[in-house]
């Protein structure tokens, strides 16, 4: 967000006529434009024009409107609701309209007060710029003109802002500059000279233009077994995590934000708890990114508009987040957005809509809920950028259905616009089976696109093992219907074995302990070896069945337990113990055969 003093001359001036919570009616000018920023009242609260007609203008205000009175001034400076894009964003935490919460704390203390106008990034700080362009180069929107080390993990690529095109007229020497200093000038075709610095504004509700979309053939590797192995998501894809309260949406998003192999994480706390943001801040300032060896905070941007912060800014927060993500995508980075929770965003939309007395559709949500959600998720994608780089935005949105009922409008619409569905299950959460992602109700539509990547980069076995696991889990599900009615005792041995292997898959593979040093993140190679080990156990056990040896003997050998605990006992780098474990399985099976009078 920009600050008032930079805005120059007022474009439209009116006054407050009506106040209804965050919604203000303005009169006195018919020059206000849709979606432009306005400053409301003596305290200059930040707002945005959301509808205009010939008698009055409707504005949503991003701050608490207590104390406003009729007649107070409303001013606009002609700019759309925008984000400030510049080095200094990464590692920072902002509210829903990109005001830096750390600076707010310095200025106003523990509580957030109103009418604070602040620059989003530090305007004084000097950055070490290395120039890439020289005088005479042709540049246009997105052309990278310089690089700046923004954090230990991220190099910011300074780009030509939107609307600027021409020939480089002057370039400063490599050196230290702040974001507001002119570093390059560009002469346009009409002979105008435009000054360019490291900072640019971009409207939050407009997708940044790209050259074209690429196919999404690379996975976002998360280190979370149930996702990588059973429900993989592509870089550039979109996923929904629906679940009732306490089922693990936030935990799942924290895990992804920590361990997924994106270059940059934009974490949007949209109408959720303050403590959760504090927790991310604290943990990410300590945890090390396994990929770069730097602190996780060095690749993370946090947007925190918690549930008790103004509701209109909550509505804006996801756009602020995605606009920031697109900026880094244009530099050629893979960005992952965690939006927790899109339902709170939808509720903000509903609340504003209600105050506008719009005709509600389902459950009071406005009829445009679905199109807004679609527009948001469409900003995900694997893009070929205008400047020739490739980058992606993966969006992972939590959905908090009322009453845990997935038939409600937000879940249903989201389902249409995302291609991964990580359905969280209350009963799994009650039994403390985490992550409580239900393997039967969830799906990923990216599997076919991603199979070649796994074949090439991990092993053709990976997807084969996946299919085997899914089959066993499906079969378990149908057998459980019977077991619920009559118990498992009377099942034939081969079906008992299916249940036992399924149990091993659930406990040993699907359950993953986020709080365990080794188990919290698991590389693909280990995931595959784990799958293969379980399959091997299954194959060997079937050999016993063929010889009519009761399966109970294998259970009693204790080998199941060894397999279940391999996730803890085998390291993430040293895979040798898998051979030992497989050998142990073989030995146990052979021993049982011998005990039953068979020779090997």
């Amino acid at each position, binding site marked *: 967000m920009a600050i008032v003093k930079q805005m120059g001359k007022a474009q439209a001036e009116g006054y407050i006529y009506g106040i209804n919570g965050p919604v203000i009616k303005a009169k006195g000018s018919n020059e206000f434009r849709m979606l432009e920023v306005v400053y409301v009242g003596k305290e200059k609260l930040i707002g945005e024009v959301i509808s205009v007609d010939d008698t009055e203008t409707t504005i949503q205000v991003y701050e608490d409107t207590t104390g406003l009175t009729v007649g107070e001034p409303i001013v606009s400076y002609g700019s759309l609701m925008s984000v400030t894009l510049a080095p200094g964003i990464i590692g920072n935490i902002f509210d829903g309209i990109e005001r830096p919460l750390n600076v707010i704390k310095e200025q106003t203390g523990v509580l957030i007060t109103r009418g604070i106008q602040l620059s989003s990034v530090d305007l004084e700080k000097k950055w070490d710029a290395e120039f890439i362009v020289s005088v005479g180069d042709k540049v246009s929107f997105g052309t990278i003109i310089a690089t700046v080390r923004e954090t230990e993990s991220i190099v910011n690529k300074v780009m030509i802002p939107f609307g600027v095109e021409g020939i480089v007229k002057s370039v400063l020497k490599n050196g230290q500059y702040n974001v507001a200093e002119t570093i390059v000038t560009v002469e346009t075709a009409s002979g105008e000279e435009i000054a360019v610095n490291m900072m640019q504004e971009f409207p939050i509700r407009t997708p940044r233009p790209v050259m074209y979309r690429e196919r999404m053939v690379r996975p976002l590797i998360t280190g979370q077994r149930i996702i990588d192995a059973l429900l993989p998501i592509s870089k550039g894809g979109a996923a929904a995590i629906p679940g009732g309260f306490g089922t693990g949406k936030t935990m799942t998003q924290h895990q992804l934000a920590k361990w997924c192999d994106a270059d940059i994480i934009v974490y949007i706390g949209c109408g959720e708890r*303050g403590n959760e943001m504090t927790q991310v801040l604290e943990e990410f300032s300590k945890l090390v990114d396994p990929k770069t060896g730097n602190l996780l905070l060095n690749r993370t941007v946090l947007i925190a508009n918690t*549930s008790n912060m103004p509701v209109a800014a909550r509505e804006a927060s996801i756009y602020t987040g995605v606009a920031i993500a697109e900026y880094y995508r244009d530099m050629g980075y893979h960005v992952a957005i965690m939006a927790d929770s899109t339902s709170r965003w939808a509720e903000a939309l509903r609340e504003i809509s209600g105050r506008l007395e719009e005709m509600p559709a389902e459950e009071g949500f406005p009829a445009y809920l679905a199109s807004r959600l679609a527009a948001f998720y469409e900003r995900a994608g694997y893009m070929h950028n205008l400047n020739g780089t490739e980058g992606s935005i993966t969006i992972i949105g939590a959905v908090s259905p009322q009453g845990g009922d997935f038939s409600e409008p937000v879940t249903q619409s989201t389902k249409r616009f995302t291609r991964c569905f990580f359905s969280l299950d209350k009963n799994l959460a009650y039994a403390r089976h985490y992550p409580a992602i239900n393997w039967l109700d969830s799906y990923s539509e990216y599997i076919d696109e991603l199979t070649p990547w796994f074949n090439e980069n991990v092993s053709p076995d990976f997807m084969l093992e996946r299919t085997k696991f899914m089959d066993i889990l499906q079969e378990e599900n149908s057998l459980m219907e019977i077991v619920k009615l009559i*118990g498992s005792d009377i099942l034939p041995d081969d079906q008992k074995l299916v249940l036992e292997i399924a149990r091993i898959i659930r406990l040993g593979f699907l359950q993953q302990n986020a709080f365990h040093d080794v188990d919290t993140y698991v590389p693909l190679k280990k995931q595959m070896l784990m799958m293969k080990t379980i399959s091997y156990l299954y194959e060997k056990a079937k050999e016993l069945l063929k010889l009519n040896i009761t399966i109970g003997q294998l259970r009693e050998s204790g080998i199941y337990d060894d397999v279940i605990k391999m996730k803890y006992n085998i390291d993430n780098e040293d895979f040798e113990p898998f051979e030992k474990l497989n050998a142990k399985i073989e030995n146990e099976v052979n021993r049982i055969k011998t005990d039953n009078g068979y020779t090997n």
Partner: protein
Amino acid sequence: MSVEYIGLNKIEGPLVAIEGVEGASFDEIVEITNSEGEKRLGRIIEIYGDKSIVQVFEGTENYSLTNTTIRLTGKPLEIPMSREILGRVLDGVGRPIDGLGDIFPDEMREVNGSPINPVARVYPNNYIQTGISSIDCLATLIRGQKLPIFSGNGMPHDILAVQIVKQAKIAEDSGQEFAVVFAAMGVKHDVEAYFRDAFEQSGVLHKVVMFVNLLDDPIVERIVTPRAALTAAEYLAFKCNMHILVIMTDMTSYAEAVREISSSKGEIPSRKGYPGYLYSDLASLYERAGLVEGSSGSITQIPILTVPNDDITHPIPDLTGYITEGQIVLDKSLHLRSVYPPIAILPSLSRLMKDGIGEGFTRKDHVPLANQLFASYAKVMDARALASVIGEEELSPVDKQYMEFGREFEKRFIGQGKNENRSIFQTLNLGWQLLGLLPVDELDRLEQSVIDEFYSKTQVIL
């Protein structure tokens, strides 16, 4: 600001419309006087030109379009704050009703508060021993947490809340003062009296401030009650550095008041007639818990709500669960089997416990033990379901052991006396003893080292 306006334009439920008013500001408090000279307070909730809509706290009985005058105060609702509020009983908007005279304010505070900056929060990680095994072991209360009790009519949530107040070791190790802020919203007289007596008997009354809006008190005031109480809590915690436990009961009555006012405003309802902003409204209360930088006090909230129809998906418990940091769920069937406290442990959860338990806080076996108890108890449910179909006799030997474990666990671990105060070590040891009823290869959440150190040892003791 002493211009007075005579007459009203419209009266509807707790709302009145006034016209021709100048300088009214959003959310400001107005004073309404009727022809008998009786003063009531109202709040401006909408302004359009020279028209305003006012919500009258004490209701609009006796009002006609002509018999009232309105005076703008120019300020949002503020209440007097001072340490002297401890030991006092106030009404829903913070006026004394105990006959002990006015409160001499140290400062006036706006009841709506302001959001806490997330970067100024301190993440809570200090556990509070309540002496109740099921809570301490399985849904540990953390200082600065918001942990509601989901209950139902006729269930002992009040008794449990009092037991927590009496037993909670909330400030012991910090040498700081501890106090209770009690907000009663739409509760029956005898409930309020029960709490007052209980506080008195346990000698904490002088450390309690009560904000009371009873069942027959005006509903607009009910909307302010928790806000007034939390304003007091913030003053005591963050200005006076005290550890504050806030008990708010009954959140269901509160939410119903929100619904009633919303419908009188003609707003579009979302689920079950509740307004779409109920989530944000509840969050503006629940988020006023926690710890902040620069202050050594804390606010721990225990809201109590009676779940309508025992339906946990009803908007009130549902939205509450989406905001609070876990929940303690009371269960009717345990209550009918005389298990006290009837805490249903599977749906109960404390989200902050993981950072406040284990080595250095409670004991290093706490986390694995809790995980195993949850998992084993979940299997008890499966065994019971099966037993109800085929009969307990037909169960496999392992399932029979689960049935036995379930009974003992409910009787001895969940169940305890209303004055029984167990230390965390007693609780944990009891948990291990009960796991002893199950064969070791059923303990699939435990690493071998834990089994060796704790499970096997307890076996010897048994």
